């Protein structure tokens, strides 16, 4: 088992529930390939630094998990098929220093979950603040 981190960007055109559903699908892909999700953190709706497939914004979600290295190619293949994903970035944490950093980030993400609202609420709050503007 090796430690990994995946950042996924979900299409901004979906509603909050649809975003939550597609994130559940993504996590299901990881779990069905033998992965153990350690933590997840929602970065929320953000402006992209450059347009991807003509969308200017995207919903960022980070998943920390550990899985056997051979399963990564299958997970990435499933991500590539998924049309709701704009982009995904897989990071490997291999050396001792990186693993220590990974554990620190997992701890931080777990702490954040208890305080921060869920993805649906974040999306709704973002939409509400937009309407005010």
């Amino acid at each position, binding site marked *: 088992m090796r430690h990994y981190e995946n*950042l996924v*960007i979900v299409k901004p055109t979906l509603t909050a529930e649809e975003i939550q559903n597609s994130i559940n699908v993504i996590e299901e892909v990881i779990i069905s390939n033998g992965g153990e999700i350690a933590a997840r953190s929602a*970065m929320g709706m*953000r*402006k*992209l*630094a*450059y347009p*991807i497939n003509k969308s200017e914004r*995207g919903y960022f979600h*980070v998943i920390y998990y550990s899985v056997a290295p051979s399963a990564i190619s299958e997970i990435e293949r499933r991500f590539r098929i998924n049309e709701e994903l*704009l*982009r995904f*970035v897989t*990071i490997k944490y291999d050396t001792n*220093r*990186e693993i*220590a*950093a990974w554990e620190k*980030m997992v701890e931080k993400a777990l702490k954040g979950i208890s305080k921060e609202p869920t993805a649906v609420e974040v999306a709704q709050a973002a939409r509400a603040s937009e309407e005010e503007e």
Partner: protein
Amino acid sequence: MSEKRKYKKRFCKYCESKVDFMDYKEVGALRFSLSERYKIMPRRLTGNCKRHQDMITVVIKRARAAALVPYTVTRKQVITAPFENLR
């Protein structure tokens, strides 16, 4: 000495604060090593040591792939949005 030193003697800011690992998601921290056109600043200008420069280049390239930092900035974008999405 015929050749005068043009810049102040540089030191590595990351060594000073003992950075062991950089996270590509903390975009604000990458700003130091990026030019205003989002190019990676060379070591001779920032004074970073080789080890930390290697770390920051990997991290910046990851952040670019994740659309957190742009690859290129055209002239129009420079005028409208300088460092706007890094906040």
